[in-house]
């Protein structure tokens, strides 16, 4: 444009719209205030989920077990003897197992067989169980079969298929895949 003649410039200016440089105001995006989370390392250091040895007594956790029984009864609407087992199974798959009394019935490693106790914590791959002798046992889920008893219903949990965090398990659909042979 600068080199053109005046008439030509006038001509262009009258007909077309000329876009001048335009600086738009940058909207300062409000930074989302991220909730200050901890990394796994920090969480482990904080020991939020550890139970002190003084508090590792079986008798303390028996009320927890009673609460759990009540919760399951509410979940299954009564647990009458004529209720079909697969209904209960479906509900148990999504239920929370903290406070259940569980026994290891089958295991690839024979020293795990026979461990009985109340589930205190459920992690992705292990259960933390407290036994009657006030011992906190960490039992892996892989290659273990746990048996759960509630009001005469005995269910077997195949730990190898159960390797999910409790929170995620409530949302997961379980499909029959592979064998349940240990």
């Amino acid at each position, binding site marked *: 444009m600068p080199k053109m003649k005046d008439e030509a410039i006038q001509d262009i200016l009258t007909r077309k719209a000329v876009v001048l440089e335009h600086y738009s105001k940058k909207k300062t995006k409000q930074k989302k205030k991220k909730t200050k989370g901890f990394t796994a390392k920090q969480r482990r250091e904080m020991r939020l989920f550890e139970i002190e040895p003084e508090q590792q007594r079986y008798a303390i956790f028996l009320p927890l077990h009673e609460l759990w029984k009540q919760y399951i009864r509410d979940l299954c609407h009564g647990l009458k003897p004529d209720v079909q087992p697969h209904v209960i199974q479906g509900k148990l798959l999504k239920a929370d197992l903290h406070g259940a009394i569980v026994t290891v019935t*089958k*295991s690839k490693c024979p020293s795990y*067989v026979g461990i009985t106790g109340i589930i205190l914590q459920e992690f992705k791959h292990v259960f933390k169980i407290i036994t009657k002798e006030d011992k906190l046992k960490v039992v892996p889920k892989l290659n273990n079969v746990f048996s759960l008893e509630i009001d005469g219903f005995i269910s077997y949990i195949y730990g190898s298929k159960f390797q999910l965090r409790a929170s995620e398990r409530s949302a997961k659909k379980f499909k029959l895949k592979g064998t349940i042979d240990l």
Partner: protein
Amino acid sequence: MAAAPCHGYRPQGGAPLRAPLPRMRTAARQRAEASSPHGFFAPPALVSRAVGDVRGVPLPHWRRCPAARGARRGDVGAAALAAPPAGAAAPAGLRAGPRAGRALAARGAGAGPRLQLPLLKSTIADVGQYYLVRNLSVHELVAHEFIDAFVKKGSCYALTYNTKIDQDNTAALLPNGKLILSVDKDTYEELGLQGRPSQYSGKKVMRYIVTVDLTDSGFHPDSKKHNRVLWALKEKKPLEFDFLLAWYNPGAEGSTLMSYFSKNQIQALKPKITFSTLRDLECPVLQSNELQGKPDESCSTEELFEWLGAVLNQVSLNNKSSSFLSTYCCPQPNTMVEKAFLCTITGFIIPEKIIQLLEQLCCYFGEPKLAYWLTLTVHGFADSPVSWRESEHGFHKGGENLYNFVIFRNLDYWLQMAVGTNDDCPP
């Protein structure tokens, strides 16, 4: 090797054996080159050993010889076959078959055969007795009363009856106080006792062996070990079997098995003894110091072993062209014997009784007889979890584990031991 099926191996006439006697390979004198027992296609191994003179030495010497040392549990059946001399008379001998014990006695023709048969019958009159208990739980064998009464005093032998080693759970009690449980995968995972996988399982382990030492010092009542074993066998996974039991006690005091297990259905049984006479039998000529056999003078140990198997299975030794079963001939050089005597003992026979039998046979050679040699064959159970000492025994296709004594007139003896594919070398 003849393809004729063997006679029944199971006590009290059960199903016939699954396969004929194995082909053997001679190992070096000290079993140096015995084939690998773990290979899938390895042929069964045979160990031949010629041991020197056992003349005039009483019982302690026999204890030193390999068969006695092996102390095979529940050895059954001793078979002795006497070889005829080059002359006319055929000697007498005893041959006992496998567990079920078949005794084959070859009787000489020369010196009054009728006199010899009762003599032999009297010598093998007492082979002890054994017990069959139905539906006995294994936890009763772990109870401390049983251990104190039977396991710690004398030697106690137990084996499950009618269980297959490659399919079902099997239990055995050895005289050194070890209880061996050979269980399948599911039972092992539920039982909760620590064991090791079987040596003869492939990539996927289907068989586990659990060993419990009952005479262990840490196994006293109220110890953790004892409680765990008792809990596993009583509450977690109760195992029940029919057991064959035998107890050898030199002191002979205290309660007997019969009175201890009076609550269960216990039967006392005696091994079955049968005698038969074989006529016009071709027997190989043997020389006691020639293990490999000289070309025209004597036969080698393998040839003798094959011949023995053929005779026991009643395979005809003439190579008839019309026969479809076997083309086996008696090895050269051989002699024709008018009469041979075969005695078969079937049952659950303990090694102490076999030693006594051997001594009686040696006494047979005390008077000058026309026999040159006699044979004693002992077969172990095809379904037992152990073969020699504590080495694991598998069935594969035959489950054979046997040893054979050849006793000569001058009291030299040969000892041949044979095992099947899924077995460790004999000691």
